[in-house]
């Protein structure tokens, strides 16, 4: 089944975060598949402070809506305007062009390795 990029770390709510600075945050292929076609993204504003494990936005598909949790605490420095304009990219490339926002990280939340996330999701 699905392979999750080993360089990323994950949350049980199906977000991923990389190790760059600022850190890039997105949702996983598992989330994208479960949602169906993403049609609307609500992301935190640039400059907003986010707290790990709290709801910071919404991701909406034709069929359902789910909340976005921040995997890390810090300050949002950029959002993916291309994904807001055309959310289909989240389905097409959730670990790449479908990234959601970038954070200047002050602290991390509870994060899983790719292997742990794979076990968590049963993949």
């Amino acid at each position, binding site marked *: 089944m699905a392979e999750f990029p080993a360089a990323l770390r994950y949350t049980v709510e199906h977000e991923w975060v990389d190790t760059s600075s600022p850190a890039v945050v997105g949702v996983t292929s598992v989330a994208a598949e479960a949602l169906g076609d993403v049609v*609307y993204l609500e992301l935190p504003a640039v400059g907003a402070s986010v707290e790990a494990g709290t709801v910071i936005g*919404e991701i*909406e*598909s034709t069929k359902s809506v789910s909340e976005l949790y921040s995997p890390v605490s810090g300050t949002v420095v950029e959002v993916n305007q291309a994904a807001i304009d055309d959310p289909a990219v989240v*389905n097409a490339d959730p670990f790449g062009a479908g990234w959601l926002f970038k954070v200047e990280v002050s602290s991390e939340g509870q994060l899983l390795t790719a292997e742990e996330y794979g076990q968590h999701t049963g993949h």
Partner: protein
Amino acid sequence: MDKKTPLHDEHEALGASLTGFGGWLMPLRYTSDLAEHRAVRAAAGLFDLSHMGEIWVRGTGAAAALDHALVGSAAAIAVGRAKYSMICAEDGAVLDDLIVYRTGDAEFLVVANAGNAPLVASELAERSAGFDAVVEDRSDETALIAVQGPQAEDIVAGLVAGDDVATVRSMKYYAASPVTLTLADGGTVTALAARTGYTGEDGFELFVPSSSAVALWRTLLAAGEPLGLVPAGLSARDSLRLEAGMPLYGHELDTTTTPYEAGLGRVVRLDKVGDFVGRAALESRRHSAPSRVLVGLRGLGKRPARAGYPVVAPGSGRPVGTVTSGAPSPTLGYPVAMAYVTPELSAEGTEVGVDVRGRTEPFVVVPLPFYRRPQH
């Protein structure tokens, strides 16, 4: 444990995501909700609807039995035609919405929603007592495959021969006829072909014995593919019927609703001769002002309303209704919803709010349906 349709293995082989619905394990989507939705609007979609209930009512008293059991007039349906109807309780509550096909002078097929089929079958049996009519629930032996979309006629007509070609080509909306389809494996199957559907597009629904379901499904997929047909799941079916303003039992209709609130009073034939279950309650309901009315809502923002969200008065935030179905419309590009609201806020053009997870989004009352297919 959800039941599996005769096409379950086909869905698995096609990589469908499966979901429980009305007691059945059904394909939610094969690839993409949006792609399946758009294929039905632009070309064609193939749906497994084998979860639906097929209940036959036969006998010289079948029409009279159905006239007593349902709110519509079965006796008024011509052989080979169909009618949308409802079965109500004594208090006028909708137990299910149905399509009634008259397949012979003394033979009717009643198609019920999956989750309600056992109840409808037992109510029909009970209500037929005293009439010369036999009720037979054939749901488990019957598969239902729908081909929906502008290419549906060409696809189905391409699989029949002789007189059946003209039968398919000239079949009117809400008509039905047996036709013999040639299968890809060389065999044939006789289906009851009906020009009905739940998508807002032209299309056919094909009732066949469960044993022929797989061969027919594969035949239709192969024949339709060059014309743009794709298999489509319940997710697309739901967004298609919502755009077409069609009610879904459990959302727009339930046992707290009479046909009048749902804007479907036309299906209640108070002018028919004889008593029917629910008549007294529906007669008085018809003449009293409804406390709520089903309306269409168009979202002015981007965030769609979903079933269960409160409708609120603009400004005051006072609750004035509830959303019954809602989604971003793939065809129209803006959020659409159906909702029950108080009558004073039901006029076209009325602005209301919907509480979308704690934040009020602006919506405006619009006529149903949201989408009408282009007429040729």
